[in-house]
C-alpha cells in the first residue's frame, strides 16, 4: 500500500486526519562509505516503531524525504528493494546543508523518514518484458532497488532478459561494487559495467561513456523491451538518441527525474514540469510524457 493510500485508510479508520508532513522516527543502523572519494555514503535505517515498517511498504523507483530535526529534509531515492526486509537503505551524496550534516551523523542517531513518495517504475507493465537498466554515477540507487527486486527468486520469472548498463567516472566511484561483481557472475542478468577511464591494468570491464556503451551493448529494440534510464542530465541527453537509434519508442524509454522539492506530496509547488509535479506525478515518466511537457528539469 502506498503512502497516500495508507494515510487515507488510517484517516478513514481512525477518523483523525493524518499528517503527511510527519516523518516516521528511525535509527541509523549502519553507515557505509560508498565511493572512494567518500562523497557518497549508504545509510541503513531501522524504524523505531515496528509497525511503521509495514506502513512504509514501497515499490522500486520511489523516493522518501530524509528528515533531520533542526536541519531540514532532503528527497532521496530508496536504494533498498521492497524484498529486503527489516531496514531501508539510502545512498546520499554530500552536497548541501542537510546532506553534509547527515554525513557527520553516527550509527544510533535518531532522525525521520517520510514516505514512500512519488510513483515507481511501471512494474505491472514490465511483467513479461525484457528490461534494460541504464544508470550513471550516483543516480543508480533506485536502479539497484529495481535489480534486487527483479532478481528476487519470487520475481525473477516475471521478467524476460535483464540487461544493466552502469557507468561511473572510475572503478572506485561505482556504487554497490560488491553486488555489481556478484551480478556479473550470474547468468540470469547481463551486466555491462563501464567507467569513463581507469589506470587499473586489471580492469576487466568496459571503458567508455554510458551512451557509447548503450549503442554497443544494449539489446536492439523490440516491442517487448523497455529501458529504464536514470543519471545526470548530460548522460540522459546523449543516451536518449542512442536508444532511439536502436529503435526504442518514446513509450519504451522510462526515465526518473529530479527537481528541487520540499513537501514531496505535490503541494509546495516548485517541482512542476508543466502541470505535472515531479514529486507526486513523477519522478518516473516515459519519454513520451516528457516530450509533452516543458523541459524544466
Amino acid at each position, binding site marked *: 500500500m502506498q503512502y*497516500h493510500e495508507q494515510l487515507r485508510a488510517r484517516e478513514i479508520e481512525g477518523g483523525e486526519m493524518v499528517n503527511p508532513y510527519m516523518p516516521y522516527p528511525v535509527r541509523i543502523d549502519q553507515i557505509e562509505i560508498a565511493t572512494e572519494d567518500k562523497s557518497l555514503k549508504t545509510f541503513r535505517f531501522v524504524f523505531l516503531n515496528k509497525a511503521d515498517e509495514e506502513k512504509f511498504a514501497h515499490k522500486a523507483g520511489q523516493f522518501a524525504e530524509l528528515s533531520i*530535526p533542526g536541519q531540514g*529534509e532532503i528527497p532521496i531515492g530508496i536504494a533498498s528493494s521492497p524484498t529486503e526486509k527489516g531496514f531501508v537503505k539510502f545512498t546520499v551524496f554530500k552536497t548541501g546543508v542537510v546532506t553534509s550534516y547527515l554525513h557527520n551523523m553516527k550509527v544510533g542517531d535518531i532522525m525521520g523518514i517520510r514516505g514512500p513518495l512519488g510513483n515507481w517504475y511501471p512494474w505491472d507493465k514490465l511483467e513479461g518484458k525484457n528490461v534494460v537498466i541504464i544508470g550513471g554515477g550516483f543516480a543508480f540507487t533506485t536502479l539497484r532497488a529495481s535489480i534486487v527486486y527483479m532478481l528476487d527468486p519470487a520475481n525473477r520469472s516475471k521478467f524476460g532478459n535483464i540487461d544493466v548498463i552502469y557507468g561511473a567516472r572510475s572503478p572506485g566511484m561505482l556504487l554497490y561494487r560488491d553486488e555489481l561483481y556478484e551480478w556479473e557472475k550470474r547468468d540470469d542478468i547481463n551486466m555491462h559495467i563501464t567507467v569513463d577511464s581507469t589506470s587499473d591494468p586489471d580492469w576487466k570491464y568496459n571503458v567508455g561513456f554510458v551512451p557509447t556503451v548503450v549503442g554497443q551493448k544494449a539489446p536492439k529494440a523490440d516491442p517487448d523491451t523497455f529501458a529504464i534510464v536514470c543519471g545526470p542530465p548530460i548522460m540522459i541527453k546523449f543516451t536518449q538518441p542512442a536508444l532511439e537509434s536502436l529503435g526504442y519508442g518514446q513509450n519504451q524509454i522510462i526515465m526518473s527525474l529530479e527537481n528541487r522539492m520540499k513537501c514531496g*506530496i505535490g503541494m*509546495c*509547488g516548485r517541482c512542476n514540469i508543466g502541470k505535472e509535479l515531479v514529486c507526486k506525478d513523477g519522478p518516473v515518466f516515459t519519454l513520451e510524457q516528457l516530450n509533452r511537457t516543458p523541459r524544466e528539469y
Partner: protein
Amino acid sequence: MKVIKIEKKEWTGGIDKSRGKYLLFGPVKESDSENEKSCVGNRSCPADSDRYIFKQLFADQFPEMGGVDTVLSPKSLIFPQTEKMLQTTLDTSVADHHIMKRVDTDYSPRAVIGIRPYDARALTLVNLNFDTEDYRDPYWCDAYEATTFIGLAVNNPSEFDFSTSMGSSPFGEEGLDVLLVDNGDEFIAKVITDKGQAFLDAAGFSKVADESAIKEIERLKAAAEKAITAKVGTGNLKRREILELHEAPFWNDIAFACINCGTCTFVCPTCWCFDIQDETKGKSSVRFRNWDSCMFPLFTLHGSGHNPRGEKVQRVRQRFMHKLKYFLDKYDQGTMCVGCGRCVQSCPVNIDIREVCNIMNSYEPER
C-alpha cells in the same frame, strides 16, 4: 434560499454577541491592528497609514464594512505567511528527542467577516491544492474547516477589478457561507450554508427579509457587474497545447520589466507555494513553512547548482502558465486567477495579468 435583514444599528451588538462562539477576523486599519504604537508621525509609517488589512479583531474592534480594498488578501488567515508545523527537542536526555510532533494550534471556530467574493472563490481554488484525493494538508484543512466566511458583496468595484472575466463576480457566492449586501441602513444577508446560518444564529440576526430585499440584491448585483469594464479573454486558453503557449514568442517582452520580486505572488489570493525550513533555538527545534515565490531563483535551484528556471523569463512564464494554463488543465475549475486586481495594482513595474492573459488567449501559433 433564506434571506435575513440586519439593520446597521443592530450590527455591532450582533458582532459582539458572536464573539462568544467565534474568534473574529476582518479588515481593519493597519494602524489600529498593532498593540504597540511608537511611530513618530512619518507619513510612511503604518501608524499613519490608511491601509486596511485582514487581522484578528480585538474585543473592541469591528470589521470595516465600508467596502475597503486590502493590499494583501485574507489568505494569510487560513495559510499564514509563516506557520509552524512540527517541533521536537534535540536534548538527548529527553525520552522522545528528535521525534517530531505536530505543533498545537488553536482551531476553534472562527469567522472572517467582510471577505470579498473573489477572495472566497480564491480560497476554494487553493483548497484544491491542499485537500486532495491522495493527501490532505492538515494545517490548511483544519483552519479552512474551522472558518465561517461572511462575505461582503462589492457594490462599487474598483478600477482594478476584473473578477467577472475570471469566473467570479462582485456578488459571487462560491466559497462563502453568508453573503452580506450593503443596502443603505441595512445589510441584506443571503444564507448560503448551514455554517453561515449558525453564525447568524450566534449573532442573533434573525429578521427574515421580504421579496423586495431579494429584488434589491439583484438590482445592486446587476449594477456592480455592469460597472466592471475590464474585459479579459480566457476562452481559447483551454484548447491551446501547453507547449504551444510555453514556446510562444511573447515571453521575453512580457518579462523584460520584471525585477523578480515576490510582490505579485504574495498579494495574490490564490498563490499557495511554500518553503519548509527548520530553525533551532537552544535544544528546541521547529519546522515551519513560509510563503515562497516562483519569482525567486532559489525556488527551483538544485543542490548541484543547476536551475531549471534560472532565467527571469522562465520564472515569469511559470507564474502565468501556472495560473492561466496548468491549473486550468489540471482541475478544470477555471483559471487560478479570480480577477481581484491586486497584482495589477501592486506590481512595481506594471506587469499586468489582464494584458498577459489577453496575449495568451489570442495567441495563434504558426503552423
